[in-house]
């Protein structure tokens, strides 16, 4: 199996893993695990009050998702730039060996 096929197959498995929860948990809210942990903390220790709050919070869900998308975009930009750079370098070396 060549590289492209192997990786496509692996990515397909990841996509299936992402879809499965929606199929088997039709009613779920898909809230963050952290907000569930907050609830658990208030169950265990009802008196606990967070003593510090975030210096800045994204003013809306839209702004927050923009920032997350930006984070993913910047990261994958760098990742893909580097992979392209490696492939180009490898191809050049290959050409040099058999002129």
């Amino acid at each position, binding site marked *: 199996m060549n590289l492209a096929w192997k990786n496509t197959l692996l990515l397909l498995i990841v996509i299936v893993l992402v879809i499965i929860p929606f199929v088997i*948990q039709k009613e779920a809210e898909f809230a*963050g695990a952290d907000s569930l942990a907050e609830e658990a903390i208030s169950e*265990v220790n009802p008196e606990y009050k967070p003593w510090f709050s975030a210096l800045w919070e994204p003013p809306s869900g839209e702004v927050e998702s923009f920032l997350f998308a930006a984070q*993913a975009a910047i990261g994958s930009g760098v*990742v893909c730039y*580097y992979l392209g750079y490696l492939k180009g370098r490898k191809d050049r070396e290959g050409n040099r060996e058999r002129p």
Partner: protein
Amino acid sequence: MFSRYAKLILILSLHLILLSLLAPPPAYAMHIMEGFLPLGWAALWFILVLPFWGWGVKSLKAKVSGQPGLKLLLGFAGAFTFVLSALKLPSVTGSCSHPTGVGLGAILFGPAAMSVLGAIVLLFQALLLAHGGLTTLGANTFSMAVVGPLTSYGIYKFLKKTKVPLSFNVFLASALGDLATYVVTSLQLALAFPAPDTGIWGSFAKFISIFAVTQVPLAISEGLLTVVVFNYLFAYNKEELKELAVLQEKGGA
């Protein structure tokens, strides 16, 4: 005609409905939330993390000064963590969490380097996304950027000596490193919030059922994604992998 109370209740509930529609969704951080560790614990985790930061900066300098070409690979490992920790994926438990992406960097550069890279990602998320937090940065660094990478690195080094195929090794190392992060998160919360009746372990069971179980399918995804990029590195950049002693000098993997 509505009685006064019925009117009041109606108006109140309308307000509540409107509020719930307008209010932003809760911040979906998978790390310990800002202010959610008592001061003593927050300080303790910072103290425990400090030596790893020192070790990390030293190890990064040593690795990069020897081979300036590795800077790009280092940026790549950092960027991989950056992407993966922005991907909040649904899980079979019906809640969401995100992978950490630190396994790849740990395999490439060792656990010390990741204690710095991971902390940078956590700091970004704490400052800009109200995700995790500044007071909990020590604890979150300890779980995601110290224990996670140490686990991945240890598993990778151990399995490299055996006959386990390279891809499967990378998969296990990164998936278990991811899982270890959330086991530590659960433990940190349990230590700070022992249940009144069942103690630390009772709380630990509760938190681990929230974090770790949710994390299992995500850890598998992280393992697979790490194998995908590792396959590329292996195909196009075998030389640097050998320089970093990720692969044996002779005969490849």
